[in-house]
């Protein structure tokens, strides 16, 4: 008999995610992923000024804050045919990369690390050995014996207080933890350092967008003006700060994040064969260098990989009504034309209709509808999106930078290319693209300086700002690559107001319930076959689910 376990709440993620899994002979044989909170953002957006939409959609998520704002201004610009100035593109790119870097670092240390790092075991580490180890893998200065000794003392005091706070009831001592005590101690040290550092890189948002979380965006460009002779605008001091923050980011990622990632991965190579799940990957691509319309200029290329075939990148056509569609046969919604059909987002509908068990409940009725997420499909196929998809598309497209970091990591870990299709591969891909992003950030930054030097300080296009200049009806799509993957916003504007607004979000692709044909999406599929040592302590489920970096506020919205 299969044993059905429930993990709810799944913690160390964004949002309200519930997983129900059937376990047989110590392995997961079926799994159900459910988003249990909805706000109805698509309904709230109706009838509003399209120029305001970015602020609403940005509040879909404060973790990947800005990516919805970016997709939103792009969808309006696409609908109204607005071209933004080159500086605005560069500033948006820098906000994109600083977001991606910060989010990935937070994910690795604060949301994912405790699946691999046993905090309690760190108490037993030898500070001298730890220091030696730390120095052997990185040049990061904070690695003296004294440093680790002090940290261990602080940690001991904390544990002895008996109030374990966020570490209480963790899975400490679980047989799936494999790291030596010294690596655990390094992990804890960098947990704290990363927590302190992440608040620095994000100041780039504050400079250009006034605050973080939830910096300001603007249809037609960016709100900040550049004037190097004025205290009240982006001037030399502000730019210098951006430059140093990116330099520090590069250092932190290269000297802390990547070495830790590789050190930890080397103890968990078996996870290079677990949690692979789907075999189709999709990336919309992003970081344009020559205007958003020139897809070939993107740093992250656009494309699809089918059946893990790394020899071919398939094209995506967004306006084709048969390509991207959302289904609701297992979601708590109604479609006016029947629940079995798929709707292209321009024709998308959002009508909440809960039909699950009355709370409090023990189990969801997974045969019927069981989630607030819709189920997106590409030509009827379930797709995985996210860092792994991006790295695979870049790799398959033959981009040098991608090949270099991916091959380098495979070689260092001594694993085959197929190890990419796994829980470990997903986690590694996230680190590797962070490394690329730190490098690209400085390119964008230098390009911005060059533009200003050449006398171009424009950051906003005014011509279509006034609603009088808009057509009576317009449709648009805005895309980006959010930290968690391919994000699209779809707008229909009528009489200067939002007639329809649909978001199809990375975590929706990955975490959605199965579709009308019973095909599982990425989370559910990737759990199949996962070994579970102790069904009472779902550590392995957390590892694979966390490798996607779930964001359920995003996924449901």
């Amino acid at each position, binding site marked *: 008999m299969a044993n059905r376990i429930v993990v709810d*709440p*799944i913690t160390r993620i964004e949002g*309200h995610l519930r997983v129900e899994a059937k376990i047989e002979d110590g392995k997961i044989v079926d799994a159900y992923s459910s988003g249990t909170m909805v706000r109805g953002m698509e309904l709230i957006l109706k009838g509003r000024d399209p120029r305001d939409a970015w602020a609403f959609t940005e509040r879909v*998520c404060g973790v990947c804050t800005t990516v919805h704002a970016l997709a939103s201004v792009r969808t309006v610009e696409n609908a109204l045919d607005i071209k933004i100035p080159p500086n605005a593109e560069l500033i948006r790119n820098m906000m994109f990369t600083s977001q991606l870097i910060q989010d990935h670092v937070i994910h690795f240390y604060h949301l994912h690390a405790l699946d691999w790092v046993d905090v309690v075991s760190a108490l037993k580490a030898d500070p001298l050995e730890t220091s030696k180890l730390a120095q052997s893998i990185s040049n990061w200065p904070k690695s003296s014996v004294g440093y680790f000794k002090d940290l261990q003392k602080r940690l001991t005091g904390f544990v002895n207080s*008996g109030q374990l706070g966020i570490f209480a009831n963790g899975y400490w001592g679980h047989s799936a933890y494999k790291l030596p005590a010294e690596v655990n101690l390094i992990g804890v040290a960098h947990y704290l350092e990363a927590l302190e550092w992440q608040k620095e890189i994000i100041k780039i948002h504050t400079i250009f*967008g006034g*605050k973080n979380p*939830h910096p300001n965006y603007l249809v037609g*460009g960016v709100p900040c003006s550049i004037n190097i002779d004025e205290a009240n605008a982006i001037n030399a001091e502000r730019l210098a700060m951006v430059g140093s923050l990116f330099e520090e980011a590069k250092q932190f990622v290269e000297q802390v994040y990547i070495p830790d990632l590789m050190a930890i991965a080397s103890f968990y190579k078996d996870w290079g064969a677990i949690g692979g799940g789907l075999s189709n990957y999709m990336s919309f691509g992003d970081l344009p260098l020559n205007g958003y319309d020139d897809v070939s200029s993107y740093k992250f290329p656009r494309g699809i990989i089918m059946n893990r075939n790394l020899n071919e990148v398939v094209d995506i056509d967004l306006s084709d009504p048969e390509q991207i569609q959302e289904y609701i046969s297992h979601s708590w919604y109604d479609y006016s034309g029947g629940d079995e059909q798929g709707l292209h987002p321009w024709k998308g509908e959002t009508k909440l209709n809960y039909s699950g068990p009355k709370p409090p409940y023990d189990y969801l009725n997974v045969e019927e509808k069981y989630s607030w997420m819709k189920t997106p499909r590409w030509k009827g196929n379930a797709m995985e999106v996210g860092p792994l998809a991006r790295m695979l598309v870049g790799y398959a497209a033959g981009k040098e930078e991608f090949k270099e970091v991916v091959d380098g990591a495979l070689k260092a870990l001594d694993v085959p290319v197929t190890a990419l299709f796994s829980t470990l591969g997903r986690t590694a891909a996230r680190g590797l693209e962070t490394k690329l992003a730190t490098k690209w950030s400085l390119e964008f930054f230098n390009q911005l300086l060059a533009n200003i030097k050449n006398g171009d300080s424009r950051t906003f296009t005014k011509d279509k700002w006034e609603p009088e200049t808009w057509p009576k009806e317009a449709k648009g799509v805005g895309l980006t690559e959010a930290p968690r993957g391919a994000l699209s916003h779809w707008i229909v504007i009528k009489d200067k107001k939002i007639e329809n607004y649909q978001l199809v979000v990375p975590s929706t692709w990955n975490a959605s319930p199965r579709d009308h044909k019973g095909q599982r999406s990425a989370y559910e599929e990737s759990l199949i076959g996962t070994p579970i040592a102790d069904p009472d302590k779902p550590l392995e489920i957390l590892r694979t689910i966390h490798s996607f970096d779930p964001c359920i506020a995003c996924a449901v919205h």
Partner: protein
Amino acid sequence: MNEKPKTVYDDVKSNGHSRRDFLKFCSMMAAFMGIKSSGVGQVVEALETKPRIPIIWLHGQECTGCSESFIRSSHPIVADIILDKISLDYTETLMAASGHQAEASLKQTMEKYKGEYLLIVEGATTVGDGGVYCCIGGKTFENRLKEAAEGAKAIIAWGNCASAGGVQKANPNPTGAKAVHEIISGKPIINVQGCPPIAEVMAGVVVHLLVFERIPQLDAHGRPKAFYSRRVHDTCYRRPNFDAGLFVESFDDENAKRGYCLYKLGCKGPVTYNTCGVIKWNNGVSFPIQSGHPCIGCSEANFWDNGPFYQHLSQFPGFGIETTADKIGVGLGVATGVGIAAHAVTTNIRKRKLIQKSKKDDDDDS
């Protein structure tokens, strides 16, 4: 692992002092604090039993932006807050335990520290259709909130969502979202407004509670006066341009490049109470207005429906975007003018008739 919290007494003990030393210390503290000897017992008890303050942080209908903001705090930095100042016993965003282990942590703190823990709420509470729009662990968020509020010493409502319902409460509020104070009564509730609030303000409120052990002074909307008693407009460094009548007319125009006032782009600074101009964001780096965007009023209840954002007053309910009171006023004014003209014409016709009639009467008389 030791489950019992370490108290001040334990500390004294572990430093090699006796119980007698400890009692001596307590009476000294009591004398210092002006407590008569009969009250010494209370002090002893307080110090013997006082652990780091336990905190339960609940997540409702939220974007987790408030959590993200909190971890941006620079003074104190968040690692120090959670390791040394508080015991963050439950928060879905950061806690190691999941599923029923997480639920056990929650229950443990609620029972063990009944009446002592601080409840922090992020996100709105949905009450629509029996609360099915937000369930955690199979229970509605509304239910969880009420349970946790029961034994809480005080409640902090983080951000616009918990303080006022936030973005999900914006028209048409599809899920019946509500603020904490609309659900819970009889407990002190501190509304730390903003979407999200500034990190240092969040940390500041926690520190206030820990150090001064009382609720900060609140304004009429339940916001701590220390951070919300002044309008953004009053501390805005662009204010001299406002008084001088120097306004940005459109984004990135000459005036924008000179840092003029953003009032005409819809700045809500004059109607928004927050400390953005003083503390600023992310350790004083900047704030929305400094980076060229008007304030959208994110620390005011209902700000989502006060838009559109690029007009300084709201659009008129029921009319199209860009329809302000002025447009309607001018329309009514013109209509009045036309009405008056028509009225004047008919009056004249009537009066002429009257004159003719009286002329006729006169003629008849003669």
